[in-house]
């Protein structure tokens, strides 16, 4: 499936990303629990990994199994996150914090949307417009290009730059 995706097949690529996400989520939740980080961080890890998989998919040698490749990327992102959160590994989280995050878990839907706005707002136009159009409104590259009176090529370039900017934002911990 990833081979088709590498070849530029949007549908195959989307279903590949969908099929690895639950797996990534399970790993991320386990890590977060083990490192005493709030469960809400797990989704940030998942998204960080997805963006990294996306930007670094050119490093996968198609003659090799994809499992070790994916696992190494997950480990790299998890270690990076842990380092950013203050290293040591054993991060003590006060009970009040846990209770607090348990509470926010309930309206994570609203949280997600607020996060999305915050993240997207840090991009510059036209990238912001393109990202909002494709991710939140579900428009395709073609429709977006027509609406913004840009060529499809220009939209693609801007979109790709936006993906790199998003990766940097996840990394800076403001995801």
């Amino acid at each position, binding site marked *: 499936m990833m081979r088709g995706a590498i070849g530029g097949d949007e549908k195959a690529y989307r279903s590949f990303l969908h099929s690895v*996400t639950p797996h990534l989520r399970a790993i991320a939740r386990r890590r977060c629990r083990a490192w005493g980080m709030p469960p809400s961080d797990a989704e940030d890890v998942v*998204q960080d990994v997805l963006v990294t998989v996306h930007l670094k998919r050119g490093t996968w040698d198609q003659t090799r199994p994809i499992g070790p*490749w994916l696992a190494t*990327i997950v480990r*790299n992102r998890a270690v990076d996150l842990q380092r950013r959160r203050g290293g040591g590994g054993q991060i003590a989280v006060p009970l009040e914090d846990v209770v607090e995050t348990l509470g926010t878990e309930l309206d994570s839907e609203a949280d997600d949307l607020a996060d999305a706005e915050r993240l997207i707002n840090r991009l510059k136009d036209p990238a912001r417009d393109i990202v909002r159009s494709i991710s939140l409104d579900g428009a395709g590259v073609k429709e977006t290009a027509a609406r913004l009176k840009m060529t499809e090529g220009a939209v693609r370039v801007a979109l*790709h730059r936006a*993906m790199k900017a998003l990766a940097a934002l996840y990394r800076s911990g403001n995801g």
Partner: protein
Amino acid sequence: MKTDDLIRLLAADVHVREPLGPAIARALGVGVVVCAALLVFDIHLRHDLATAIMLPRVAFKILLTLSIAVLAIGLLERVGRPGVPLATAERLLLLPLAAIVIAVGLELALTPAASWGARLVGRNAGWCLFYIPVFSAVPLAAILTAMRRSAPESPTLAGAVAGLSAAGMAAAFYAWHCPDDSPLFLATWYTIAGAAVTGVGALLGRRLLVW
């Protein structure tokens, strides 16, 4: 952002591809062209090349530098790919090391001790120390640029491998000019120059190849 929205975004960006293999190949191509041009038009091939190439010391010098370049580039192809084991490719680099140790041993056994000093210092040690890094500069820049697409477990190691690849390539070209053929010279000055370039690569890699 919702993960599903992100996936839709990533899938829409499927068309921009940055495969690592062709990028490295292009960088190596640039390096080869620049090194060949420097060799032919700037410092020139050695004048007695036609006869010298038959001498075991000269042939050894050229084959050794070439084998280091090839093995380092083999490692370069692997070091930027997550989950690809490196141990075998790293151990292969011990082969040229063993070869140079044996060659130095033979040289010491076969030549009178009084000539060792002259063989070690050679005629052009300063040139060697100057030109190998000069030859390396463009290949190293090109390789590091290509490796920005890579995802190495250790950016420092990946930078060092990039440096060694560039130095190996530079030495493999410089050797066609270099008039000093003793393995004693090779083991000393080429190694110092190569180590310097490898070190610079490691330092740059630590900054540039983080992902």
